[in-house]
């Protein structure tokens, strides 16, 4: 209750409201562009948040995520090309509705389901995050080490079809994380005499390079013609009787979205496909699915917006980013010297409450901005890709350069872009690299610090109760994932690789 009252106060802060509305607007446009995932949309903004006030910066990024999850459904419905991976399930019935001349209704259902999903997800975020803050002070160095290990264990579940490739990608991130200053002695490592490398490589440069720059390179190498939107639909909202019918798929989407959002490594794509399946199973009209069922749009669109909110639970409470988008958001926190995790609520409570207020504003703003922005989205989707990409390239370069006015930063970003492009070609997932990069320092410094405390006695990791519990959970994660792989191998099942590439 207190949380709601305190957060409500931030609704009067014009900076937060403005950041939320700009974020949603930017997110819808970015999400509507095929190939530009929510994480890329956020990564493009990241450099510009350096000079912003921290709360507004975080709200801007989180609101972008919310907007992008809706924006992805626009091209999914209109040109059968999902703007984001999480909108792929929306294509199934959304495009069918479009063919039947009901594009406006499909967009309207997608929009208001997104708003409902956001509000439901936000409620779950507020309820689930707070209790963890209570144990914050009892997090000792061994507990932080175990927390980092838990974060890294997620790699096992999100490595797509090849665990080996996931591990290689993670080690790459861990290696980059060792550059800079040694956490215990304070000596320098792998800086090759360059004073630019003393502080290590900022995750921002690597994230922007891996996600955004490599996407531009990939698009430049793809010369196929792109689809154009020919119709001029206007958003329509469903009648009362249809709205009642949609409540059930929306509830299913909300619950599944919450569950998948809280679980690191799952993400919006799995959530939207799962809720599509469940909505069909529980529907009174299962035969309509695949032939333009409004329920088939409502369920996945509620789910992916619920994920956009609840994915913040592991990030805020533990500092573990479970998806690309939340990894970028973590980058936004780190830029301002704020480390999400157990201490966040005590040290920077105002940011959490401001974020809640901003997310609420974003959810409400989504309804109106989504309606107003539809013609602009269609116009942008119809522009030749080359022009758009040139614009995005200029945005990336100027954004990164403006952080420290440093050409060195630019070269790091470009190098990461080339590495990212090669990783795409060879089908290596990005997220393990980013996890390794952002968690590597935490894991290493907490591990070595713990051993200094215990006098090189490894039992400290088992004697600390929080550490022991977290390590057990990590072990379950890894064993479960390996067990599932073996099971699938035995049954010769084709694995679905949702978390590959640029998944939201």
């Amino acid at each position, binding site marked *: 209750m207190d949380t709601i009252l305190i957060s409500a106060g931030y609704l009067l802060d014009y900076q937060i409201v403005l950041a939320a509305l700009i974020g949603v607007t930017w997110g819808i446009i970015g999400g509507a562009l095929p190939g530009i995932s929510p994480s890329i949309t956020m990564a493009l903004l990241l450099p510009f948040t350096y000079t912003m006030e921290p709360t507004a910066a975080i709200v801007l990024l989180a609101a972008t995520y919310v907007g992008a999850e809706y924006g992805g459904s626009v091209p999914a419905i209109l040109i059968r090309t999902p703007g984001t991976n999480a909108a792929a399930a929306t294509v199934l019935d959304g495009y069918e509705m479009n063919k039947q001349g009901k594009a406006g209704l499909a967009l309207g259902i997608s929009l208001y389901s997104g708003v409902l999903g956001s509000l439901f997800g936000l409620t779950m975020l507020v309820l689930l995050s707070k209790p963890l803050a209570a144990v914050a*002070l*009892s*997090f*000792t*160095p061994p507990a932080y080490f175990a927390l980092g290990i838990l974060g890294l264990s997620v790699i096992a579940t999100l490595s797509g079809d090849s665990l080996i490739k996931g591990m290689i990608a993670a080690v790459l991130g861990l290696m980059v994380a060792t550059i800079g*200053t*040694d*956490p*215990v*002695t*304070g*000596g*320098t490592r792998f*800086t090759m*005499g360059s*004073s*630019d490398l*003393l*502080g290590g490589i900022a995750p921002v440069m690597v994230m922007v390079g891996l996600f955004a720059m490599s996407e531009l390179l990939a698009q430049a190498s793809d010369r196929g013609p792109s689809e154009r939107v020919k119709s001029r639909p206007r958003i329509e909202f469903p009648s009362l009787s249809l709205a009642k019918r949609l409540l059930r798929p929306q509830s299913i989407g909300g619950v599944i979205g919450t569950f998948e959002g809280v679980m690191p490594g799952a993400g919006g794509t799995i959530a939207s496909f799962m809720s599509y399946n469940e909505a069909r199973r529980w529907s009174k009209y299962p035969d309509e699915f695949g032939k333009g069922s409004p329920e088939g749009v409502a369920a996945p669109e509620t789910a992916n917006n619920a994920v956009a909110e609840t994915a913040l639970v592991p990030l805020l409470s533990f500092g573990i980013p479970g998806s690309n988008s939340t990894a970028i958001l973590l980058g936004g926190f780190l830029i301002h010297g704020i480390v999400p995790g157990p*201490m966040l609520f005590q*040290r920077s409570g105002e940011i959490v409450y401001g974020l809640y207020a901003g997310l609420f504003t974003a959810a409400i703003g989504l309804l109106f901005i989504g309606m107003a922005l539809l013609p602009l989205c269609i116009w942008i989707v119809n522009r030749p890709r080359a022009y758009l990409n040139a614009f995005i390239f200029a945005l990336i370069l100027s954004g990164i350069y403006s952080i*420290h006015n440093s050409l060195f930063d630019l070269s790091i970003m470009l190098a990461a872009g080339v590495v990212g492009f090669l990783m795409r070609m060879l089908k290596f997932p990005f997220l393990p690299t980013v996890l390794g990069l952002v968690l590597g320092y935490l894991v290493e*410094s907490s591990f070595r*610090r713990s051993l*200094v*405390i*215990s*006098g090189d006695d490894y039992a400290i990791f088992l004697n600390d109760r929080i550490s022991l519990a977290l390590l057990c959970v990590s072990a379950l994660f890894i064993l479960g994932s390996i067990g599932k792989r073996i099971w699938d191998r035995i049954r010769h099942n084709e694995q679905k690789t949702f978390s590959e590439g640029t998944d939201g």
Partner: protein
Amino acid sequence: MINSMLKMAGVALVLSTAGTANAQQYPVDTVTLITHSSPGGGSDVFLRELSGYLAPILGVNVVVENVRGGSGAAAMADMAQAPADGSRFYATTPTFIYTSLLSNPEYTYEDLEPLVNFFIDPEVIYTATDSPYQTLDDVIDAARAGRGVWGAANPASLERQALEQLKAVTGVEAGIVSHEGGGDLMINVLNGTLDIGVGEVQELQGQLEAGEIRLLATFSDARLDLFPDLPTVQELGYDVVVRKFRGLAGPQGIPDDVVAAWEAAVQQVLASPEYRAVYEPNNLRAAFIPHDEYVEFIDNFATETATFLRETGVIE
């Protein structure tokens, strides 16, 4: 008309110089003080406050500039190549010695000439209020009986050096745990992971007022005005004194008249009641060190630090 305006301008100019310049004319009109900390950081705030009080005494404009990068490496390079005419100085803390020794930058403290010192920030030892340690002796005894766990904010820092020295003079067994800044250290003192932590009084103010921590001793050479009951580490019988200096350094070959002007001005500004009202509540201890002594002081400090880093295996 034009003539009378020129006259007035002339009068104004004479008035302004008469009002500001004290004894001698300082050789340049504008002095730039650079810092490696970002706007709003510790050294930056210190300089910006100081510049307002210093300008009228020196009779010049004082400008603060942030030269960031490489924990002072960029600022040292800037300063080593600056003209030695008194127009540009670098606000130094022990960081510039540590960076010189740890990172092998192109220009180090040896390429600079220390000017004068302003302040010494006191470093104190603290523990959680609910910890069993009432005095520093309790902590040392506990470490002698078993093994102590002591915390410093950063790996290569003066605070860690102070604890390593304390460990050496007492000969006890203690793990010295470094952190990522004072906030991380504070948590581990409060949750009982560490016996003690070391920090500047300024950064402990919040927890002190909330009654969450207890001070045990100060590493300064004399007791602190704000905590007259707090013993120094030295008077408890452990011969360790730590001086976290705040002063200025310039390029090699600072002219004598510039040095003289600064020595006079710094003593005057530190004694001025208006400036004292600003720095004393912040626990900054005025510690003017004249040029000749300061060059020697920095040299000794660097030698001691290099020895410490070598003994702890950080550098070869």
